[in-house]
């Protein structure tokens, strides 16, 4: 089980959290102008790196707030956690 640091509540066990996949995937600005291909990319394609990955978590059984994290997908080390609108420490993502 992972130990995850909620930026508001501090270190909590993984079972308190929900996973939201890749972070910083913005809704396309002019969605009605997208080609089918671009729309498919937005809906179905996400990065899947072996290494640092910027992702979203929600502290579902705590403060219920969403936040971002950069985690290494092999070691599971959390390189940083940060609130929406903030930038990760170290400039990754």
């Amino acid at each position: 089980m992972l130990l995850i640091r909620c930026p508001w509540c501090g270190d909590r066990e993984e079972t308190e959290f929900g996973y939201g996949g890749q972070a910083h995937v913005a809704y396309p600005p002019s969605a009605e102008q997208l080609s089918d291909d671009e729309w498919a990319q937005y809906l179905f394609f996400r990065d899947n790196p072996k290494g640092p990955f910027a992702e979203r978590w929600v502290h579902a059984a705590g403060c219920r707030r969403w936040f971002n994290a950069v985690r290494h997908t092999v070691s599971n080390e959390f390189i940083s956690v940060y609130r929406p609108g903030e930038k990760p420490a170290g400039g990754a993502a």
Partner: protein
Amino acid sequence: MRPGGASAGSAQTGQQHADHLWRHTDPKPSYDAVVVGAGGHGLATAFYLAKNHGITNVAVLERGWLAGGNMARNTTIIRSNYLWDESAAIYEHALKLWEGLPEELDYDFLFSQRGVLNLAHTQQDVRDSRRRVYANQLNGVDGEWLTPDEVAKVCPILNVSPETRYPVLGATYQPRAGIAKHDHVAWAFARQCDQYGIDLIQHCEVTGFLTSGNRVTGVRTTRGDIAAGRVAMTAAGHSSVLAGTLGLRLPVQSHPLQALVSELLEPVHPTVVMSNHVHVYVSQAHKGELVMGAGVDSYNSYGQRGSVHVIEQQMAAAVELFPIFARAHVLRTWGGIVDVTPDASPVIGLTPYENLYINCGWGTGGFKATPAVGWVMAHLVATGTPHALNEPFGLDRFTTGALIDEHGAAAVAH
């Protein structure tokens, strides 16, 4: 497994292994076809390339050891009771191949058609399960709906009492489903490939591709560049890493999936039991271990291990369904990395690169498809065009929207 391949004869199975099942070869500078990944899918692809298409100047390249990936980590459940026509067609093709495979490969890998029960625990489960059974029957796939009493007849150790937290309200039953000894399946394919003269090369990681414009002309490996007329990617959980070297994005996410086995017990469990809702699947191996699978961990990972709470949940469900398991000891647990797609169906087909063919996204359920994957991938590589069985599973379905949504029948929460 020791480096020479299979171990010597194993008493518990009665299977006598030859001292060696395949040669250890160094890569040649060029092949007609290169298969990336020596899991079951890669080995079956190479086998049917030789057997169905007469193409034998083939290498299978493996970064680790032969069949050391998900092939040796899965819970070996084989069934074809999927919902949609496209899935029924390919999984049933696989099951029919399995039924003749021990003879075809001349190897007794203990394929045992002991049936599978997929339990329903809610009214919605019941409706969905019955719908799936009707769909199976229309597709010529054996399947029936069983009431709790009928379920108890098939599997007497299962607790069908209405007192449990999520009572068993019934189950679908596919009698032709079963299990097989996964590593023996790999070795059986490997031995046949070897006899066709196919090179099986271990500890040879593909790190990128040789290209000429939009055409793939070979692979870069940790043992040098290898030219290839055609390249088949069967790298399971690592497909995105590999495709990424071409700047190609895949609609897959890699997650840890865990399994465990108990100590050896005398035969108690006659069939395979799966439950989507409380999330556990169990069979008993020939040797006697209870083999149990869990759900995937929620997060992306390549770490080949998962979280303890996932195992804890799975064991709690197992003990509630099978009270007699309560005192069984866990012998070992492990994880594999599975690549999950948005519609819980695999991707098999063409890529934007000429001569590069892809098979990935089998998530938690690709072992059962092993022979069919080999069949259609060999067709793809040999002819350059998809086989009717894999045509619906192309990458383009995410653009056309013709998804094959098998979350309900894929049976592992992801």
